[in-house]
């Protein structure tokens, strides 16, 4: 089992990003996803900066993947995507079918992110034929579906040629909109958002009128309110055939979380009993994995 660090889904100042990846180099993650996956206006780091960072991390021994935008609407966003696919020299994470098409035409391998809809092995096979070498399961799917997809993939004869990754820690990416909800919260038009996302390193909490945590506003992206935590599912994942567990960055304790996950993996899942108590934290959820509503805890 490998550990991956997902792309930073929030908008952090350049300095914070640099510090974050300084720490990531010496952490236990095997794979690092870099780049902007949410909003094209977020340019504290531009493509050349990401590429430079990618080269550094790669030199330090990490497998680097460049993530791309999840929702591509403007012509400028498409041009940027083409540029990244043309020049990066990195493995790319496609988060929209646009990237899949560009990379397939160039006969370049790619990873599909969780916003690419793969709900069965036939879809996965189609993407495998186009160059997909690793896929991240859509977040709303459960362990039984995943198990069956991989069994079917085996019957279709390509299961051993593709890696499976599961979003295993962090606020779940749930939806993408034309509307920027951060700008809306600030009473600003999207075209004059003043980059207010910079003020919220973990997004803006959205609660019900009974103060129950529901969602997290992150620009045009809506995330879960609770943090999805599948750390204790390591053994099941290993059994099903999951190759990579993904940890999605938060601004506070990402590296502690990585070490906890690493400990569980190193000890073959045994450690989960010892630290299972802290996973009952109110802010965690794991419903999707058990085929329940995502926000529930089983």
């Amino acid at each position, binding site marked *: 089992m490998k550990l991956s660090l997902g792309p930073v889904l929030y908008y952090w100042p350049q300095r914070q990003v640099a510090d974050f990846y300084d720490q990531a180099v010496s952490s236990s993650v095997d794979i690092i996803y870099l780049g902007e996956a949410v909003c094209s206006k977020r340019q504290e780091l531009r493509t050349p900066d990401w590429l430079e960072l990618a080269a550094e991390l790669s030199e330090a021994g990490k497998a680097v993947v460049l993530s791309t935008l999840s929702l*591509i609407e403007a012509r400028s966003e498409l041009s940027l995507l083409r540029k990244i696919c043309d020049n990066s020299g990195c493995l790319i994470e496609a988060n929209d079918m646009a990237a899949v098409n560009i990379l397939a035409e160039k006969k370049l391998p790619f990873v599909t992110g969780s916003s690419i809809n793969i*709900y069965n092995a036939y879809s996965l096979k*189609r993407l495998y034929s186009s160059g997909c070498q690793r896929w991240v399961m859509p977040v*709303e799917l459960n362990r039984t579906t995943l198990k069956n997809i991989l069994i079917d993939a085996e019957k279709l004869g390509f299961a051993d040629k593709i890696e499976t990754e599961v979003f295993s820690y962090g606020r779940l990416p*749930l*939806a*993408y909109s034309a509307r920027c909800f951060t700008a809306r*919260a600030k009473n600003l038009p999207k075209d004059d958002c003043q980059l207010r996302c910079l003020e919220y390193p973990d997004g803006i909490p959205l609660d*019900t*009128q009974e103060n129950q945590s529901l969602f997290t506003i992150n620009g045009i992206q809506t995330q879960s309110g609770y943090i999805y935590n599948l750390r204790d599912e390591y053994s099941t994942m290993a059994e099903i055939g999951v190759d990579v567990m993904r940890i999605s960055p938060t601004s506070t304790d990402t590296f502690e979380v990585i070490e906890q996950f690493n400990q569980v993996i190193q000890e073959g899942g045994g450690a989960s009993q010892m630290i299972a108590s802290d996973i009952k934290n109110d802010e965690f959820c794991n419903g999707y994995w058990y085929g329940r509503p995502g926000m529930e805890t089983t």
Partner: protein
Amino acid sequence: MELVCPAGSLPALKAAVDNGADAVYIGFKDDTNARHFAGLNFNDRKAKSALEYVRANNVKLFVAINTYPQPHSWSRWQAAVDQAADLQADALIIADLGVLDYARERYPGLNLHLSVQGSATNIEALAFYKNNFGIKRAVLPRVLSLAQVKQVAASSPVDLEVFGFGSLCIMAEGRCHLSSYVTPESPNTCGACSPASAVRWSETDKGRESRLNNVLIDRFREGENAGYPTLCKGRFQVEGQTYHALEEPTSLNTLQLIPQLDDIGIKAIKIEGRQRSPAYVEQVVRVWREALDSYKKIGSNFVTRGEWLDALANVSEGSQTTLGAYSRPWQ
């Protein structure tokens, strides 16, 4: 532009045809389509009656098979494609890559349309579906501004259909998991968003409350119009303020954009609402037929009539309509 109208039942289909639909889209009676609600949709016999009625009136029939099958239910989607092919529907509206692949391989002569649930918002994504499955048309998600629709249309490899009227999804369709985060059902897996089975209303001393799977979606004061608790249209707290943090209860209405949409080369206008009554279908289709005919006749002198807007407002969510993402300030 072709007027593509919804039908969740045979009476609704007849209402659509009688009031001027160019095409009607339907779904089968299971979770293979994105309006999988109790009492709705067509079994084999009803689908055949639907086909007879549209054929007799020279109207097209599209079948939506636009949810995402999982391994345990794959055969149901396969059967739906077989059934639609057997019916000789004029087009199948599909989202899933595997289902597209199956339809393309098994029935190379079928017209395939990419469903809005396929979430293709740009020409590269459209090209993927065209190159791999030979789709003839795609329905654009309701996330593009008019200027962006124009850009896509200018170099789209396939014909484009856009939403003209009906419930407004504010998230990119096919990529919204809000419903399954809170309830057991989602559009992609079950063809349902904020399902009625999860809704609970209660009168409390704080007002009338609407809940989804026990999560408070909204609270209404006396006399306030209490709309259906769709997740993205509730009132929530953000930084101490309580408001419609994502969107107000409102419907999309683009009647006024008819000339621009036609100018930029949009081939079809879709009316949302297979879950709505035959009366809704009749009202909306009649207005849109009149509007499109009026535009055809007088071209650039086209103006929206007050009576049309009144009629549409009557059947709109919260009696409000918006241009949604087509209008940049909305975003």
